[in-house]
């Protein structure tokens, strides 16, 4: 920029038209006033409104404003009428809809009529001449400032805040102590036990039967036909005294049966399925949404939140989307009565990554 303007450094190369100035590189701190600056155009001439020029238009605007206020009155009356005319009848959800709709329309009309009327009044009818009001400094006058200091000093003298040190210091101590109960209370919102253990363990353990959600009835292997998908909770979840939802959120499992020739298993996990029946955690390894959009022909599981896709036929590996790890597999087998049972808990923590997660 500077080079182009002063013309000394860019040089007067042939063919270029450069207006040559004397070396005018300003020293710092000097205001530069350019000769070719654009003149301040000032304010545009004031445009008068139609209501200023034409008395007929003014009367019309007046009528519009009072009309809007009358509309507001009508709206308020309508709200009362609607409340009586469309009562909420127990057992009829549609009556709530009608009641809300007409009550809301009435109140909306009541409020909007006042608001729009008032704005239109001020815009079209109230004094509309433009004027310039200079900005004033924020610093108060010396008198005001002296008065303020005087007030502070008088307060200090009367209360003895600086003189009575014991009172002042105990007050500061009391103020410091007040947030302590909050810390104690809010600390209790966090789990009392080690949260890492809680995140790593679920209700599943050796011999726990796989049960239907929500009835809690156990599932026999023979009931899971090819192409089936069962939504599974551990047996005994419904009988839990407390933390039922927390346990369900960790232990929820999707049970699917694939044709044996389609199932590709890891060598060390060959014994984790039963006759093509596989069980995978329903909690997405991305941010923990329930993954249950199962396509029985492609054997893909889709997470509805961020479109992570898992291939159930291929040990639930991630084939698309932001999930970082495959879904944890629940090792299953059958007990002597033919019911599906877990061999153990999940081998890894379910759900999204967390700070202390080892894998």
């Amino acid at each position, binding site marked *: 920029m500077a080079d182009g303007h002063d013309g000394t450094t860019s040089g007067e190369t042939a063919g270029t038209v450069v207006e040559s100035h004397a070396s005018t590189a300003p020293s710092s701190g000097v205001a530069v006033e350019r000769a070719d600056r654009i003149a301040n155009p000032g304010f545009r001439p004031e445009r008068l409104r139609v209501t200023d020029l034409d008395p007929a238009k003014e009367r019309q605007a007046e009528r519009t404003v009072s009309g809007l206020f009358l509309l507001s009155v009508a709206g308020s009356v309508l709200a009362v009428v609607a409340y009586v005319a469309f009562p909420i009848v127990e057992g009829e959800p549609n009556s709530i*809809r009608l009641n*809300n709709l007409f009550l809301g329309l009435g109140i909306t009309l009541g409020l909007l009529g006042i608001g729009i009327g008032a704005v239109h009044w001020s815009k*079209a009818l109230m004094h509309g001449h433009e004027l310039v009001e200079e900005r004033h400094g924020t610093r108060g006058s010396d008198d005001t400032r002296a008065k303020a200091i005087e007030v502070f000093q008088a307060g200090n003298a009367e209360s003895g805040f600086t003189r009575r040190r014991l009172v002042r210091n105990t007050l500061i101590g009391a103020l410091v102590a007040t947030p302590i109960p909050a810390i104690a209370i809010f600390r209790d919102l966090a789990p009392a036990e080690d949260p890492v253990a809680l995140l790593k363990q679920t209700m599943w353990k050796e011999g726990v039967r796989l049960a239907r959600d929500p009835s809690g009835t156990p599932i026999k292997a023979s009931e899971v036909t090819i192409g*089936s998908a069962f939504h599974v909770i551990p047996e005994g979840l419904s009988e839990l005294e407390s933390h039922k939802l927390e346990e369900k959120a960790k232990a929820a499992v999707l049970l699917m049966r694939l044709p044996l020739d389609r199932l590709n298993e890891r060598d060390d996990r060959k014994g984790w399925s039963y006759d093509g029946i596989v069980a995978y955690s329903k909690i997405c390894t991305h941010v923990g949404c329930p993954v*249950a*959009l199962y396509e*029985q022909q492609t054997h893909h599981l889709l997470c509805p939140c961020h479109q992570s896709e898992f291939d159930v036929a291929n040990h639930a590996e991630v084939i698309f989307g932001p999930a970082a790890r495959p879904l944890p597999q629940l090792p299953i087998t059958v007990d002597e009565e033919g019911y599906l049972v877990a061999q153990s808990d999940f081998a890894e923590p379910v759900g999204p990554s967390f700070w202390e997660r080892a894998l």
Partner: protein
Amino acid sequence: MSKRIETDRTMHSTSPASTRRAGRRHPLAAASLLVVGLLATGGAYALATTSATAETTTASAQLVEEGGKLFAANCATCHGLQAAGTAAGPSLIGVGALAVDFQVGTGRMPAAASGPQAEVKPVQFTQEQIDAMGAWVAELAPGPAVPPERYVSGDGDAALGAQLFRINCAMCHNVAGAGGALTQGKYAPSLAGVDPVHVYGAMATGPQNMPVFNDLNLTPEEKNDIITYLKYLEQNPSVGGFDLGALGPVSEGLFIWIFGLGGLVAVTIWLTAKSN
């Protein structure tokens, strides 16, 4: 039934006979009457049932034959003449009459073109023809049959149906049954206005990429509860007013970003503009 009545009569007639030993009836009269009665009712019953079975056998044989012809003409190109499947279409052995009723009854089959998913289109056959093809396919191997009326009546427990729907169906079909997207062009269709038999058929047979929910997973009564819930949704509009297609945060977010924020911008411009 008739046997018990006969026995009752016998008891009534024997007791007076035994008290008045020198009666006009022979002591064996009651016993012989019983034998005659039993033979008569039994014979009549046997005759009636045989003729009835014979009639239904001929009727279903005709239906199967008719279905076989329709299948050969309309389906065999992709599914093979014996429905054993080809590269273009899966085997239909063991899918049952209900799968045929769903696929053909909703117009998905015969498919117009191969694609990610067979689309719903105008139904190509009459219900009789569909039933005939179903009978032929059911004849190949046992499979789910068309459910009796009481399982598709929609007079079950809507609350339980809603719970089952949320657990088993809502992740794909949306909690209000509005449908949703799946992977690579596939989608779960909207369930509004779908015939209850077809809803039942989809659950029982698992068409295309939908998983199977057999009768041991969701019992026929539970399937009816789900149908009841879907009917309830259709008959009771959203209590909260406009449901914007019940698609959830997508349509609601789009609405508030365009109309909510747009409205705010318009009001702001109007407030600050000078009146003309």
